[in-house]
């Protein structure tokens, strides 16, 4: 009897184990301020990662959403755990947001924010925002894939929901300090010098960069940026602008400054001073001779 009960218990446990969900260490999930929203209101959806005991260093994926119910108003990657983006979160065909980034040295923590999206709701209906094509890699030097699970977000757009005002991000701080670097490699830009730069903004996220070489105007630029002045004899200013308009400007001095005798301004000034002094001496001598003759 006891033996039959023991076998039954084992059988039940085996059967149940087929239905049990596997437990993954890492979870990627979508989180929203509210699951019920009025048409025309704003819904903030954030993408988080919880790595539990694993250390990961690279993530990519796509957030898909119903474009008949939601329209992307703004994407905010400020305060992201990802330091560098191979693909910055961006909207494609109005219905999906692709992203890919890394965190050098690895990341192990709960509630790691990847980025946030502010949607505006368009019409009533039930919908879901979901993650697809997700890849998470371990910080092991080999790019080993981590096991993970994803958790999507269901929402309802209805007139009966409470009004939600547009989330505003208070951000008066400029982007973080950074150090642009000049580099060259035969495999890029035919070996010509280019500039690389990246920084983070802990508030609203980076909006764009601008570059000025010498005394010219600032122009929009992306990293890597092919330098127009390959002589590297002028200063380079890089401006990082966040989504609230705060700016940080970093100036690199000329890498190959002109020597004094190569500077036309200095030579010109020397010549002018020389001419003036010669002129004074000549004038004095001529006057003396003139007065003697008289």
């Amino acid at each position, binding site marked *: 009897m006891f033996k039959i009960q023991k076998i039954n218990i084992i059988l039940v446990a085996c059967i149940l184990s087929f239905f049990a969900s596997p437990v993954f260490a890492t979870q990627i999930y979508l989180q929203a301020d509210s699951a019920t929203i009025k048409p025309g209101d704003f819904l903030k959806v954030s993408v988080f990662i919880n790595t539990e005991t694993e250390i990961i260093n690279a993530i990519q994926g796509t957030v898909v959403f119903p474009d008949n119910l939601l329209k992307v108003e703004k994407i905010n990657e400020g305060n992201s755990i990802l*330091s560098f983006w191979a693909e910055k979160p961006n909207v494609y065909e109005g219905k999906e947001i692709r992203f890919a980034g890394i*965190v*050098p040295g690895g990341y192990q923590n709960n509630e790691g924010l990847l980025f946030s999206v502010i949607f505006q709701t368009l019409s009533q209906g039930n919908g879901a925002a979901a993650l697809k094509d997700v890849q998470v890699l*371990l910080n092991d030097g080999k790019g080993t894939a981590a096991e993970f699970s994803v958790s999507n977000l269901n929402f309802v757009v209805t007139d009966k929901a409470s009004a939600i005002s547009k989330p505003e991000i208070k951000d008066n701080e400029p982007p973080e300090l950074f150090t642009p670097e000049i*580099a060259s490699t035969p495999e890029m830009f035919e070996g010509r010098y280019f500039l690389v730069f990246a920084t983070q903004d802990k508030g609203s996220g980076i909006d764009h960069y601008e570059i000025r070489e010498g005394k010219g105007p600032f122009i929009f630029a992306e990293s890597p940026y092919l330098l127009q002045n390959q002589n590297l004899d002028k200063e380079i200013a890089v401006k990082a602008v966040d989504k609230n308009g705060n700016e940080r400007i970093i100036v690199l001095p000329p890498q*190959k400054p002109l020597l004094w005798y190569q500077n036309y301004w200095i030579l010109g000034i020397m010549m002018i001073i*020389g001419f003036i002094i*010669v002129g004074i001496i000549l004038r004095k001598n001529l006057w003396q001779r003139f007065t003697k003759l008289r």
Partner: protein
Amino acid sequence: MNKNYLLFLFFIEIILVAGFHFFYQRVLADTNSAITITVKIAVCGDGVKEGWEDCDKSDFGEASCSSLGFSSGTLTCTAACEYDTFQCVAGPSCGDGSCNGSENCANCSPDCGTCPPAGGGGGGGGGIIMPPAPQTAVIFSGWAYPLSKVSVLKDGQLAITTIAGPDANFNISLAGLSAGNYNFSVYGEDSQVRRSTLFTFPVYITSGVTTNISGIFITPTIAVDKSEVKQGDNIAIFGQSVPNGKITISINSDEEFFEKTTADKNGAYLYNLDTTPLDMGQHLTRSKAILNGEDSSFGRTIGFSVGIKTVIKADEKSLRGDLNNDNRVNLVDFSIAAYWYTRPISADFAVKETENLNGDGKIDLVDFSIMAYYWTG
């Protein structure tokens, strides 16, 4: 001779010299490329700085990183006999977020905060001494290797470096931060310029608060003297850690086993492993340190094989992930890889991808992950 006449001759000479250089440069500018290229082809690479060369191999004249406006570092010379300042380190500068060098609250408030106003006053007025404005800063402290360079990365970019003491202790502060989430990494370089793994941790920084992060125990460095060892011979496993630290060496074959040794007063450790009990094939080894009851994590893993012959380990040609061969893995390498992301790579770059990344003929997330592991900032 008349004094005025001498003065006249002197200034004519200045005009002629200035004018000579002015017009000579303009003439050179028209044919500069031809002359310069000719000179460089003929002379550059002979190890002698001459003519229009900035440098030639190790001949820099009197130039150095310092003379070019940097605080320290190593000036190198390109194959085109031009200065290469990539390994020069910029000195402290006000506004870089770090209160160091000769900076203080009086000459650099953005980095060091504002000085308290002078207290007291004349007569019976008295004065109010205001406390200094709270700084948003982080202080890192822990153990690396004696007199080693310790680097701190902020969100993957080099923020500040320091030199550990003879006892391997280090203490370094970073000020001028904004409130928010940061990912800090700390690593050390030993006396043979071997780097430790990154000690990385996420921190939320609160505005106006100085956050102390202590107990950072940098993992030991590790190397082996042979890439392949004849079974039964010894292989030397060595590196650097804290002085007199207890070193645990893990050797991972089919099963993991551990050996122990002790670092000397300079933190150097050496263990000669008898490979007799090891199976033929590939093995991995790594080490960790214990000091005064504190453990480091296991550091970098390196491999060796046990076979029928001994092969002395050659110097590594390049660091994994280092695509521009500057002995660092940082934003420049990331940008180079990102340039080729989702596009067909060129034949030249395919060679680098094979040598430095995963060699699958394309740049994807796996390559970025490898780069992120070997990151140095």
